């Protein structure tokens, strides 16, 4: 498998801020269901609340398909709480906000910008067995889209169940006919 695809997540133990309380999240916590690890640079910044708020808006849909969201930054769980208390957007978040101040999770997922001590915008879709099935990493200024992420989780779940012998049917009415691609080598 190339890159992170198929890699099993490392053992970890971190603190999290979740719906008003602090809790411990470990590797065992995330096994048995689909998970999204959503890294972002820092609390109390500008692009991040937009992304996290976008995720919060789609959270119920992720839950309906058996997927938990774990946002992760290098801030402590105390800072997460302070941010949630100070920001209406962050305050509405119902998914666990993981704290990774030691940088272990970010290092494992190779999204740690060591000089800044922050994580870049990396998103990792992990299956119930703890294996990474899809990921994307964006530069700092490029925000992500929760609806697109939801589609990817659904696609990953479909492939997990049905194998990779199918193609998604993303049709757009009025689309131009695709240029023919002839490939009959070895068939005729």
């Amino acid at each position, binding site marked *: 498998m190339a890159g992170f695809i198929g890699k099993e997540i490392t053992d970890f133990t971190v603190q999290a801020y979740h719906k008003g309380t602090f809790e411990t999240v470990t590797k065992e916590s995330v096994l048995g269901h689909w998970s999204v690890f959503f890294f972002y640079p820092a609390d109390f910044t500008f692009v991040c609340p937009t992304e996290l708020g976008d995720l919060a808006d789609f959270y119920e849909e992720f839950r309906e398909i058996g997927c938990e969201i774990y946002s992760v930054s290098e801030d402590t769980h105390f800072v997460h709480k302070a941010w949630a208390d100070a920001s209406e957007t962050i305050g509405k978040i119902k998914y666990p906000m993981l704290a990774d101040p030691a940088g272990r999770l970010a290092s494992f997922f190779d999204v740690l910008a060591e000089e800044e001590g922050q994580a870049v915008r990396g998103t990792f879709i992990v299956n119930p067995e703890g294996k990474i099935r899809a990921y994307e990493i964006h530069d700092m200024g490029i925000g992500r889209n929760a609806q697109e992420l939801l589609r990817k989780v659904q696609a990953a779940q479909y492939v997990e169940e049905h194998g990779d012998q199918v193609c998604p049917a993303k*049709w757009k009415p009025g689309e131009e*006919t695709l240029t023919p691609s*002839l490939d009959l080598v070895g068939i005729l």
Partner: protein
Amino acid sequence: MIDCNQFEGTSPLLDEKLQGELKGIFGKMETAVTLKAVVDMEEEKSREMALFLKTAASLSDLLTLELYTPLEAEALEFDTEYLPATGLYKDGIYSGVSFHGVPGGREINSFVLAIYNLSGPGQEIGRGLVKKIQKIKKPANIKVCVSLACHHCPAVVAASQRIAILNPLVKAQMLDANLYPALVERYGITRVPFVILNDETTFTGPRTIEELTGMLG
């Protein structure tokens, strides 16, 4: 019938290089094949299909094109609910193979294979499998819903159409589902290839010609 000569020029989907490749393949044809297409001249996709077929047919003396209006479609043996539709004929007899939508993208491959297999020499196929296909006793209809970008689809289309060519009781249709949203909605199609067997049973994903044969009575 519609006069094919009203379509000037060649299809932009078939550039010179591709035309050259198709000419080479069609040069192996053994018997004449007629493409009978039902097109609605008010619709862009139909006009595109007509020009595509005209260009393809120009690449071989053994390929002929006949264009029909929807009103004339009743006289034809293939399904004309999903337009534009093209049925393949040999010696004036419908082969059981039809394409619904322009066979662009990856489906150019199944289009070429259908012509090659109908006209001869055809792809190699084991005698045992030919006998099994010819022993199919119940009429069957195989609709393969595709996306033109899907690389898994042409093999299923070609396999189902080869069965249709070998057994007159079987009809095999390629449908570019992008053109038929009502069909997509009726069957809840989200992945392709999506196969509809006798308008009842459905399944997704590739199947070999052996597997498809085994599903038919």
